[in-house]
């Protein structure tokens, strides 16, 4: 067992292969996909000497366990969690040398949602449209991990780690998302704008890689009727008929027919990816972001 591959011992609630995503195919109906917390996945890659866009594993809430069939350097970032190698605690947020055949366990997140497990050389599944990301909306890329699955690993490059230790992210008691109004802010009542800006929302447990769903006061429309389908961007705050805003994340559909009241800047979305269900959520609405 010295081939460059790993076997999945415990897939966890939802663990998928992610890189920086699929670009340039939105006009064919192909979502962007990619790691939800991009800064964390890039940092994990830096810790093991990979290019920032190498494919990593993205876990959801309860981690995963894998057994590399070769000696490999790994690092875990994103949501803080216990990390063990053959049952012995090792550092989170640092490069760890794993011997061939040892089990790397990414434990349940102590806060946040998504941890990232990077391997020197990257996860080397076959790219689809130039990306190795699992796209849960349209099913492109490798399927989510299953117990017993085997994933190929790439050969480590000559790159040296750019960072020694990652700082643990701070504790966010509240998720704050900035919103720039448009393109369909005028489809809502002036009162809806105020409700969005002042309402107390929570992150819904129905959130997933497609969108961050919310619980809170509904936004009322000024314009009834159907919006003809139009292109959607990452961070779009789409409002379906129930009036509860949905913030589009990486696996969002490329076109949609519900009006978008505003757009959250990409730099706020890593925090959105780490907000557990029930986290209080506040929208800050403004033009000069």
């Amino acid at each position: 067992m010295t081939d460059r591959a790993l076997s999945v011992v415990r897939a966890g609630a939802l663990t998928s292969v992610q890189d920086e995503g699929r670009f340039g195919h939105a006009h064919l109906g192909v979502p962007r996909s990619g790691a939800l917390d991009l800064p964390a996945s890039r940092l994990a890659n830096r810790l093991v000497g990979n290019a920032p866009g190498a494919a990593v594993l993205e876990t959801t809430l309860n981690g995963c366990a894998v057994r590399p069939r070769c000696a490999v350097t790994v690092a875990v970032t994103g949501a803080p969690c216990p990390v063990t190698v053959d049952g012995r605690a090792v550092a989170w947020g640092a490069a760890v040398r794993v011997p061939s055949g040892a089990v790397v366990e990414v434990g349940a997140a102590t806060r946040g949602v998504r941890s990232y497990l990077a391997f020197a050389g990257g996860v080397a599944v076959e790219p689809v449209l130039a990306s190795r990301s699992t796209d849960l909306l349209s099913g492109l890329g490798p399927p989510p991990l299953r117990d017993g699955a085997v994933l190929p690993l790439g050969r480590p490059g000559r790159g040296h780690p750019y960072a020694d230790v990652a700082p643990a992210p701070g504790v966010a008691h509240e998720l704050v998302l900035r919103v720039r109004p448009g393109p369909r802010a005028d489809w809502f009542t002036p009162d809806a704008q105020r409700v969005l800006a002042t309402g107390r929302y929570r992150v819904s447990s129905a959130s997933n890689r497609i969108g961050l769903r919310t619980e809170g006061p509904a936004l009322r429309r000024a314009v009834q009727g159907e919006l003809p389908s139009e292109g959607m961007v990452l961070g779009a705050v789409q409002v379906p008929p129930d009036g509860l805003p949905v913030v589009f994340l990486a696996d969002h559909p490329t076109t949609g027919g519900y009006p978008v009241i505003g757009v959250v800047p990409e730099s706020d979305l890593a925090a959105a990816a780490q907000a557990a269900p029930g986290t209080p959520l506040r929208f800050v609405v403004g033009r000069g972001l």
Partner: protein
Amino acid sequence: MSGPRVLPVGDHALLVELESGEAAGALHAELVRRRAAGTLPPVREIVPAARTVLLDGVDDPPALAARLLTWDIPPLKAGAQETVEIPVRYDGPDLAEVAARWGVPEQEAVRIHSSAGFRVAFCGFAPGFAYLTGLGERYAVPRRATPRTAVPAGSVALAGAYTGVYPRSSPGGWQLIGSTDVTLWDPHREPAALLTPGTRVRFVPQAPR
């Protein structure tokens, strides 16, 4: 005739709204031409839709918006490009209902659909799923009240005034009028989608299996 309207979409995108689907198609064609000619500033995604074109991944959206409002955009020309022919068996379970809605016998419904010239207005819903215009509003049909949990790949279907072909099996609420063996989506083909925005399409009737 009102001109294009540019709507803000966050910090790196803009949405151009036009008065018709034809005008959106014409703007999309112009954008693709200018990008191929190297005269368009970098844009990561150009996404046409029913009446809009989204430009995403733009460095300076206001500057690009100001520029494109000065363009003289030629209207779409039929026959300007190759037509993709899709062989269809008109054997869908909803053909009778569609014919009844149109007030014609089934054979006449097949003739109407197969003699129309279609254009891919945009893609969405699933990779390679194209929204085809060409039938005209008088042939618009509603979606099914209860969507099917599994529509087979290759189903040729109607909703509103659009025709679509399911690239793979998925749930769906469109009215199924026929089926084809053509591969709509193959990620290892270039381009992966058979039907890309702007493509002209005709449906060619085949004997049912």
